[in-house]
């Protein structure tokens, strides 16, 4: 049974990989390809957030880690002329270190203090991005960031970037699956159930929470660094609190503890966002800006009240019950 399940999973993965590899060829337009790339970037951040959710934590500072990753990698590549092969990992290491420093005092505290601390970090980082004009370029941002490249090969087109980013997505998902399916995963589920209970079983709660938090920040940094070298222009606005909320909505739609759900959540919410941006001005002509927050807020509340495991898991469960019912009939 276990072996059969494993084989089926491998088949699934191969099929998914093939479908993803074929997608750009089938993509109807350049716009669709850009959308796939953005979804890939968001999916990496969301999977990190889901990892964090697996330990019963939620962060409202993911956009800050996403942004630090983008700025560090962009500055190293632009000002020092380093290869992106070095700058992206360095950005990830920097962010992981920053997350460690943030987690040190706050992870021991009750859930809401951790949320508040990550929220505070998000705001501090955003203020620094805007104010440290000599380094970050202030509100007008950084231009002419080099694209991804190594050994003479350069990633210049959307299609090339697609393969880079989705390889990273799959790697991120596989690492996350590994983390959540073995010893660490069992420990995390115990912590999710009850921190006190987990501690009583000899699980080092603080250490596991820290590891997952640092890993989730590293995911955000990877996505941020890729973003900087993809768009080749960064400014503080995409790394604000609003972006953190957006990532949270993606993770909640997918189910806060469901890794594959994170992928689906990122895709669903990104597409939804595009639809809302296109349709809403027709309904409410005089508003601009962040009116979508109302819809996302309702989405968060409804999902948390009625489908705490996320819409994806809910759909999977429905499918399974139906299959079982068919099997019995």
């Amino acid at each position, binding site marked *: 049974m276990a072996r059969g399940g494993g084989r089926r999973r491998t088949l699934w993965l191969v099929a998914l990989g093939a479908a993803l590899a074929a997608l750009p060829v089938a993509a109807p337009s350049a716009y669709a390809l850009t959308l796939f790339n953005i979804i890939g970037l968001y999916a990496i951040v969301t999977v990190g957030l889901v990892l964090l*959710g697996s330990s*019963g*934590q*939620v962060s*409202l500072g993911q956009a800050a880690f996403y942004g630090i990753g983008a700025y560090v990698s962009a500055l190293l590549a632009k000002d020092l002329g380093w290869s992106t092969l070095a700058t992206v990992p360095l950005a990830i290491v920097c962010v992981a270190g920053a997350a460690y420093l*943030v987690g040190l*005092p*706050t992870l*021991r*505290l*009750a*859930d*809401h*203090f951790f*949320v*508040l*601390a990550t*929220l*505070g*970090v998000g*705001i*501090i980082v955003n*203020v*620094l991005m*805007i*104010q440290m004009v000599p380094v970050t370029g202030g509100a007008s941002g950084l231009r002419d960031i080099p694209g991804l490249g190594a050994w003479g090969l350069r990633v210049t087109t959307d299609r090339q970037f697609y393969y880079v980013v989705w390889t990273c997505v799959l790697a991120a998902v596989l690492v996350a699956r590994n983390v959540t399916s073995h010893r660490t995963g069992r420990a995390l589920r115990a912590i*999710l159930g009850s921190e006190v209970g987990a501690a009583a079983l000899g699980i080092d709660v603080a250490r596991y929470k820290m590891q997952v938090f640092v890993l989730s920040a590293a995911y955000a940094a990877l996505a941020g660094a890729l973003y900087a070298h993809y768009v080749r222009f960064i400014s503080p606005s995409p790394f604000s*609190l609003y972006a953190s*909320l957006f990532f*949270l909505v993606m993770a*909640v739609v997918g189910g*806060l503890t469901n890794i594959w759900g994170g992928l689906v959540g990122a895709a669903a919410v990104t597409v939804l966002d595009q639809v809302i941006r296109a349709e809403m001005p027709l309904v*409410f002509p*005089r*508003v*601009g*800006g*962040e*009116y*979508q*927050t*109302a*819809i*996302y*807020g*309702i*989405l*968060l*509340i409804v999902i*948390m*009240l009625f489908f*705490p495991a996320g819409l994806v898991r809910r759909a999977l469960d429905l499918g399974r019950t139906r299959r079982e019912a068919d099997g019995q009939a």
Partner: protein
Amino acid sequence: MLALLPQLVLTGLTVGSIYALVALGFVLIYTVTGIFNFAQGEFSMLGALICATLLATHAPLALAALAAVAAVAAVGAATERLVVQPAFGGHPLTLIIITFGASMVYRGIALMVWGADPYALPEFTPGPPLILFGGVLGRQALWAIGLSVGVVAALFAFFTRTVWGAALRACADNAFASRLVGISPRRMSLFAFTLSAALGALAGIVIAPISGATYDMGLALGLKGFVAAVIGGLGSAPAAVVGGYAVGLIETLTTGYLTPGYGDAITFLVLLVVLFLQREGLLRGARRRAA
């Protein structure tokens, strides 16, 4: 350098008194229900904007303000009944995300109803400002400080002299034991949300003549209120008020003496430092027994 100090302190006390009101509402809900209400700042925003709309219909100020406070109190009660109550007993994460969702809904709805442009509220009593120790104190600032002190005194009397106040305190102290003596924690939770929404609305209405009223004012106000409440230890109302004044002073002094843009960053840096110093167990009144 020093000549600036009186002015900065007066301004700090003014905004601090508003933060104190927000923090009070926040602590009220937290001690009674154990919920971190991330939508607290939005109550202030709704209060200010509803009041501005009523004033536009030429309603007298006192009536408009009272009606706005009552309306927002109803919003607070509805929030508790519709989205908070059904999630009682769930994972703490669920409630955090739900109150955050509620704050996003209010902000989005406010943007749709009132648009992005700021609304101006008139000062309660227009007139020349006072000069105190070489600093200027506007009349509206006096209203803000006076009202916050008055509300704290009224709340203190309410908590110590009335049955409802005692019931709220009992529920905050031990929800299970309160049920044994016939106090319904659910009803107290509804009451706490209603009262703290009213407090938030009042804060918004008082600050609006100074800062203007916009759909997104709640976010900053709410966050400063949280910081104030956390500095105060989250357990007691007087400490939250002190925390509010502390945040107001820190904010104006840093913007006055350091570069202006860093004000928010420093407030939250203080928050991180306070969280770091608190650690586990040091936080008195934050540990709660389950109902």
